[in-house]
């Protein structure tokens, strides 16, 4: 080994494909996978655009009459809007409070100032592109805005669950022994309670006390704190399998530390499992958000999610106002379908042995 190489040869012009690159190539071959990816990307872009205020910023503006018909059903009778219109009974003269009112000394100034503040009354539209909700808000904009919360809850909940599950699974699977015993105990406790019950219990408590944070954050926490178990189990199994693999033994033989073996060597080799789980859990959590919203947990009143839309729309079908139910239900179905198909394609692409 005496010969000294002055210049190491340059890397080849065409980069050598790693496993991720190969997986990406396989995914690109998969038409269904690519279409799904495009749909998911579209929804994500929509969510981001809505988040940054590029679109659907004034979704809350009441553009139309109550339950405005969709444009393509312009002729339909709208009983709800009629019911609202023109209802004002004649009133007796108002009671005078001036003798006891602490504000009475400034009545005059009040009137003058009030007169200066103009109010703009907008004309409400009879129809909206895809109909309006009960306040007359545009259902399309509402659906777009709703995607923001739903996808955020799904993605971040899944991300958190995957992080928790992966970390704990790695600990239990790699270390075994006492660490494993304690984590398995945790796992057993969490999984022996039926999942729905667990979510309800957490939700009830989160709601009652606010100890899991407010609003959306609490949903994310509820879902991830109850949902990590499945990922934990998978990752633990992977870690047990990989810890005994020869490449890990080899890493130990060359003196790599435990931390390095756990995260530098094994993690990249099991991360595809986490990735597939992430995608699967996102789907599950988007669906779970709907149920939680229906039960009245979570999303703050000044925000909208597909779940709150469905909860709102539950009684609208019978009165013939199907569009909100359809818009929220269908957008969710499209996204979730795309996500599920993408999950399948990802799984195939990342692990070609599984078919």
């Amino acid at each position, binding site marked *: 080994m005496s010969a000294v*190489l002055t210049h190491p040869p340059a890397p080849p012009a065409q980069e050598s494909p790693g496993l991720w690159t190969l997986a990406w190539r396989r995914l690109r071959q998969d038409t269904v996978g690519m279409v799904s990816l495009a749909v998911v990307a579209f929804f994500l872009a929509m969510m981001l655009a809505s988040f940054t205020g590029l679109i659907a910023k004034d979704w809350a503006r009441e553009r139309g009459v109550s339950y405005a018909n969709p444009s393509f059903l312009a002729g339909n009778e709208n009983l709800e809007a009629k019911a609202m219109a023109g209802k004002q009974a004649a009133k007796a003269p108002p009671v005078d409070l001036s003798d006891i009112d602490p504000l009475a000394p400034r009545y005059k100034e009040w009137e003058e100032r009030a007169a200066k503040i103009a109010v703009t009354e907008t004309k409400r539209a009879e129809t909206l592109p895809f109909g309006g909700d009960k306040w007359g808000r545009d259902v399309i904009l509402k659906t777009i805005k709703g995607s923001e919360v739903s996808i955020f809850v799904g993605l971040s909940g899944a991300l958190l669950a995957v992080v928790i599950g992966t970390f704990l699974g790695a600990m239990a699977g790699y270390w075994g022994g006492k660490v494993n015993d304690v984590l398995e105990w945790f796992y057993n406790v969490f999984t022996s309670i039926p999942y729905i019950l667990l979510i309800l219990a957490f939700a009830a408590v989160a709601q009652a006390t606010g100890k899991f944070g407010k609003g959306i954050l609490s949903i994310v926490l509820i879902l991830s704190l109850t949902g990590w178990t499945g990922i934990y189990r998978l990752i633990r199994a992977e870690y047990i399998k990989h810890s005994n693999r020869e*490449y890990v*033994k080899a890493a130990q033989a060359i003196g*790599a530390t435990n931390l390095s073996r756990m995260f530098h*060597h094994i993690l990249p080799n099991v991360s595809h499992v986490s990735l597939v789980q992430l995608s699967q859990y996102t789907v599950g959590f988007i669906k779970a958000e709907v149920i939680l919203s229906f039960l009245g947990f979570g999303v703050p009143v000044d925000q909208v999610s597909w779940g709150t839309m469905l909860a709102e729309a539950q009684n609208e079908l019978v009165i013939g106002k199907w569009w909100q139910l359809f818009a929220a239900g269908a957008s969710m179905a499209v996204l979730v379908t795309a996500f599920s198909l993408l999950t399948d394609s990802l799984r195939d692409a990342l692990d070609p042995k599984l078919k």
Partner: protein
Amino acid sequence: MSNILEIRDLRIAFRLDRKSEPFEAVKGISFDIPTNSTVALVGESGSGKSVSAMSILGLLPDNAIIPAASTIRYGGRDLLKTTMRDLQSIRGKDISVIFQEPMTSLNPVFTVGEQIAEVLRLHMGMSPRAAAARTVELLTEVGIPNPALRVNSYPHEMSGGQQQRVMIAMAIACEPKLLIADEPTTALDVTIQKQILDLIAKLQASHHMSVLFITHDLGVVGDIADTVVVMQSGEIREQGPVKEIFEDPQHPYTKALLACRPRLDRRPVRLPVIDDFMRGDGHPHHLEERKRGTSPSDPVILEVKGLNKVFSLKEGLFGKRLVPAVKDVSFSLPKGKTLGLVGESGSGKTTVGLTLMRLHDATSGEVLFEGKDLLRLSEREMMAYRRRIQIIFQNPYASLNPRMTVGQILVEPMKIHSIGKDERDRVDMAFQLLKRVGLSEQSFYKYPHEFSGGQRQRIAIARCLTMKPDVLICDESVSALDVSVQAQVLNLLQDLQDEYGLSYIFISHDLAVVKYISDRVMVMSEGALVEMADSDEIYRHPREEYTRKLLSSIPKGYELAPQPS
């Protein structure tokens, strides 16, 4: 002598995905299987031998394409074009198959009796009672002890050899005219392999059937085959009577296959490799003998005293069951020499290797390296010694991290042990080592999955060399490789020993390889040391019965096999 099966211009391709061209695995082969004789189909992995055999019974995966021009004629029919129903009446009755992995090839949820009876009832129309009776007879015939009881066993309750016997019983149940044996002994220990080979040979004779024997190991063919067909890369290189193939091989590939495998009776300085034949004049070089052996005066680099390793399994209410894997093993490794460690599966040989590297915690004993007991060192103190004992594993596909480039794999240990001044220095060294183990410089930027098995084993060797170790443990390091590749890797190991004075502990179940590479050989069985002696000594004059049994099971090739009378 008529032919039971005639294969003509067989071509098989696989459609991998919609976009790329089908991959051609078999490229127009033709051969015959004569009645009442054994044909051996020999070839290394990827030669298309198994695929060809599976096509006979239409057992190929769905994505296989066979052109109309190919034919497999059996009893006046073309098996490639007959109906599925027709084929099903032939399968298991006229032509039956045994596979490489008996464990997975038997259905785990049915008893072996049920599985054998199924084929009897299906093809022979036997009543359940008659089938059951016949099953016991068959099990007796294939040499299962206590068959009346074992009928009710599930496959997992039997050993690998017994499972393969059950497969054979199933295959011969309907008195087939042709038995296809697809690497039936590869997964088995050498002693068992011998028994199974004998059994197949015996049954072939007694049942007057033909056997198509598929194997990668030319060594086992000599014992049983009448005709040999040598395949490489989907083509037939040579076919002929076994005698001609062994005594007067024509094709260089056949010659190479015969020569590459280490032999018990010779020990050339370097093993002939395939390129010597393919490119050269068809004659092997380097045939001068190498001297092996140790002397008491050799300096000892590693000494193991009373090594014990016990695994504990949880059992019962609070119980633990202690399973001893290594029992009181002591040996010493002379500097610059090779210690061979032989034994069948479960003998504890691998555990010894892992334990003395502290990849397992030893239960008791000492491992003295330059007088320091490695087992007593703290993790931190051990670091200094880690790099000096290195290991090369069996499976070249599993021992390299698939997510790291070869460069990263090679540089990492140097970084850990602060070898080399800086990153640049380490990269330089990695390039040199790659060159040394015979890989191109471009390999540095590639991922392990882009290499073949032999190349990966070279990368693993290079990784060890980055740390400039003194002792290298080779744990079945060449067992998974094809013979031709095996020879190259063995040569590389030998060259490195000659060059750097490395000491090897060479663990293998393959006695011929151990004999070739070792100065001293240690035989293990059930965790204990059976016998230890210089390699020539132990092969020539085994003292223990177990050693003798092992040695006698080694396939001897054609010349040492009893000549057909």
